[in-house]
């Protein structure tokens, strides 16, 4: 294994484990999940320690060892896991993160004295309880170091150990280097009947008598790299027959082997069970008991990007083939090209699916944000998550993190009132911040809500008038007023806290979200709370579009935004159509982009909707659906606000992709003025 690659894997894995650990720590409130959570935290710390040890990152090993020891006490219920300890463990997770980052930058993860406070605090937890338990079980047998003796090493391997590329024999050979393998038995009692046996699964166990001067830690370290794929049980030299018997009872499949080995090496005696338990049943049970694991492969993001680019080209090529094919009146050729197009579409969907990740992991991170921030400013706040299953593009997930953090912090700091105020208003003292995600017409909506006091409409108006953003006598609608807080430098906070109120932020949030082709809106009700709604496209690479023509120009309109198509029947004045009794504002693309040529006799109207707003687009003709592989526009076009990109059609022509949200906004800005412009 290349060491650099190994280290990179360590950094990635440790990052995930730390996230798991943090999630576990924040999940301790739920009594049902508590035990599992403590185990998960322990496993995370243990695994990091093991892998760090493999790379000789001694500082990390030392630190995680302390964390692990404290957690071990918690697991044995010797230590209560109170708020104070949770906070300490969260700090430790942060320090570990810092160490891992250091390793990533090529360091050794050595933070020197910076971790002293945490280490001291951890040791303070350990000191009294280890005094209370002077006779620690045999595993803690450091005393045996230095003098040579015969250990009984009992190994059980996980089913997947071969598949993960690890060979138990090489670990046993390595174990032999710690001393001398006096006796060994390969336990094959776990093998299922031939037809049920998967030869790539491991069913073997081993009992080893090892004569060594090494201590328990050194022996277990040999197998640390195997993580959960190996259970090591050690009995130190001088263990009694009772202890051997207990081990034999615990591992019925190994009992005969243990009995033989002990006899052969004259270490002790155990009574093997009268008959070996029915093997099929046993292995079946063991297979069921294995924790459910998600099987994943790590793939270089660059390769994935490459694949998606290629799929994009494939779509264009396939569309072109289909177009050329349709020129020849050959049904067989047309059947085959349309079958091909169908497959290409499926390939596109699965390729895009590869980039999709659940938003739950991102949401989960906010438990920590809420926990810390609420503590800092002395509010009691709980975070409610929903829609964690909703999937969106990995790139989006990565880039939405910061804006969301800002919104959540805002909700905590500005949204939720101070506890006394809440009590006076008759609200529960504990405030609620909610994060929700759902799909809505081809986009993803993420809502950040709070049950606080709502936006202070009057203060926003006053502040806006002061800054000249609003005419004093203008009667502004709610959405207009709330949109003001996205203006650069706008702040209504009367005092500046460490978190917010400096007037930077919401405009940056808005800019970040718009850079992702998304939009942001606010709903707020005085005394009831505020909900910020972020709307994002599902993916950044490919879109289903409706192709339309105006004169000789082609435009692609995202299919998700289209509600229906109707024939254009202009009313008395241009700019409106009668849609089944409703007035629908329209905009003619010919006028909007000042295109040449007269309108044909029959035009069509595409009814588009975005964020609750509707409008009609007047076009010459509809050309049908297409898959638009989005190519960014060159900066030359940056002055045109209603275009979000371009795409190459099968015919080789270029179509411009309309930015419907921007277009609707522009249309709204013109209302209620003269639309016939």
């Amino acid at each position, binding site marked *: 294994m290349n060491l650099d690659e190994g280290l990179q894997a360590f950094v990635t894995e440790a990052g995930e484990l730390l996230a798991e650990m943090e999630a576990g720590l924040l999940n301790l409130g739920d009594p049902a999940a508590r035990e599992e959570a403590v185990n998960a935290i322990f496993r995370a710390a243990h695994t990091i320690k093991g892998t760090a040890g493999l790379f000789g990152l001694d500082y990390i090993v030392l630190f995680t060892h302390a964390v692990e020891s404290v957690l071990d006490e918690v697991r044995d219920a010797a230590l209560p896991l109170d708020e104070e300890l949770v906070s300490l463990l969260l700090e430790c997770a942060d320090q570990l993160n810092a160490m891992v980052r250091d390793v990533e930058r090529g360091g050794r993860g050595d933070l020197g004295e910076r971790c002293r406070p945490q280490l001291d605090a951890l040791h303070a937890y350990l000191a009294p309880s280890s005094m209370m338990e002077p006779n620690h079980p045999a595993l803690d047998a450091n005393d045996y170091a230095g003098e040579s003796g015969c250990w009984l090493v009992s190994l059980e391997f996980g089913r997947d150990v071969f598949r993960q590329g690890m060979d138990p024999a090489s670990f046993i050979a390595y174990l032999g280097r710690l001393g001398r393998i006096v006796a060994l038995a390969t336990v094959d009692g776990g*093998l299922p009947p031939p037809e049920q046996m998967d030869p790539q699964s491991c069913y073997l166990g081993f009992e080893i008598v090892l004569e060594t001067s090494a201590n328990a830690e050194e022996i277990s370290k040999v197998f640390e790299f195997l993580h959960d794929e190996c259970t090591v049980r050690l009995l130190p030299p001088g263990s009694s027959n009772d202890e051997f018997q207990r081990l034999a009872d615990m591992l019925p499949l190994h009992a005969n082997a243990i009995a033989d080995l002990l006899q052969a090496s004259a270490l002790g005696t155990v009574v093997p069970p009268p008959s070996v338990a029915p093997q099929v049943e046993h292995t079946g049970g063991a297979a069921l008991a294995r924790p459910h694991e998600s099987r994943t492969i790590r793939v270089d993001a660059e390769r994935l990007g490459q694949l998606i680019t290629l799929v994009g080209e494939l779509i264009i090529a396939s569309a072109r083939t289909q177009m050329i094919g349709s020129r020849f009146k050959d049904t067989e050729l047309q059947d085959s090209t349309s079958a091909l197009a169908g497959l290409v579409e499926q390939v596109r969907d699965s390729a895009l699916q590869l980039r999709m990740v659940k938003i739950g992991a991102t949401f989960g991170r906010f438990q920590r944000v809420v926990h810390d921030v609420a503590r800092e400013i002395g509010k009691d706040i709980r975070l409610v998550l929903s829609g964690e299953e909703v999937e969106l593009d990995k790139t989006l997930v990565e880039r939405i993190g910061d804006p969301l953090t800002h919104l959540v912090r805002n909700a905590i700091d500005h949204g939720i009132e101070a506890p006394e105020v809440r009590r006076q208003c008759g609200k529960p003292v504990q405030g609620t911040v909610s994060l929700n995600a759902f799909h809505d017409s081809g986009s993803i909506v993420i809502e950040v809500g709070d049950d606080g006091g709502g936006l202070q409409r009057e203060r926003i108006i006053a502040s806006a008038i002061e800054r000249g953003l609003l005419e004093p006598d203008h009667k502004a609608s709610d959405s207009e007023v709330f949109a003001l807080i996205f203006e650069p430098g706008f702040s209504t906070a009367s005092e500046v806290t460490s978190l917010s109120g400096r007037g930077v932020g919401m405009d940056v949030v808005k800019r970040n979200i718009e850079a992702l082709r998304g939009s942001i809106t606010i709903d707020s009700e005085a005394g009831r709370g505020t909900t910020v709604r972020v709307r994002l496209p599902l993916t950044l690479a490919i879109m289903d579009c409706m192709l339309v023509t105006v004169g000789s120009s082609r435009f692609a309109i995202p299919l998700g935004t289209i509600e229906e198509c109707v024939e254009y029947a202009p009313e008395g004045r241009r700019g409106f159509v009668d849609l089944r009794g409703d007035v629908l504002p329209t905009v003619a693309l010919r006028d909007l982009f000042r295109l040449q040529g007269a309108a044909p006799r029959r035009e069509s109207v595409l009814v588009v909707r975005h964020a609750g707003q509707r409008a009609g687009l007047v076009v010459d003709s509809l050309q049908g659906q297409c898959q638009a592989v989005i190519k960014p526009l060159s900066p030359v076009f940056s002055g045109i606000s209603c275009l979000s990109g371009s795409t190459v059609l099968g015919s080789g022509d270029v179509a411009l992709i309309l930015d419907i949200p921007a277009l609707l906004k522009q249309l709204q800005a013109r209302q209620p003025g003269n639309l016939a412009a």
Partner: protein
Amino acid sequence: MSSQRIQPPALLFIEGDLTIRRVQEMKDVLLARLAQSQALEVDLAGVTEVDTAGAQLLLMARRAAQASQKELRLVAHSPAVVSLFELLRIR
């Protein structure tokens, strides 16, 4: 003349590596050959590389033979097989 004849054991040569990469394929071969004959001799002289998965497969074959009261013999162990079997004390 008896209707049953004593047959010489069938022979199976395993060549190349006997590792996780090939155990799936080798399992099918081993079991198929075992099903065809009353006695099977597995010649391991050509085994260049063997891992625990390979050893496990041979153990499984031995148990399969026992269960169906057939005879399976591993013969002519190559150096790779010898060293693994010595480590794991497989006889």
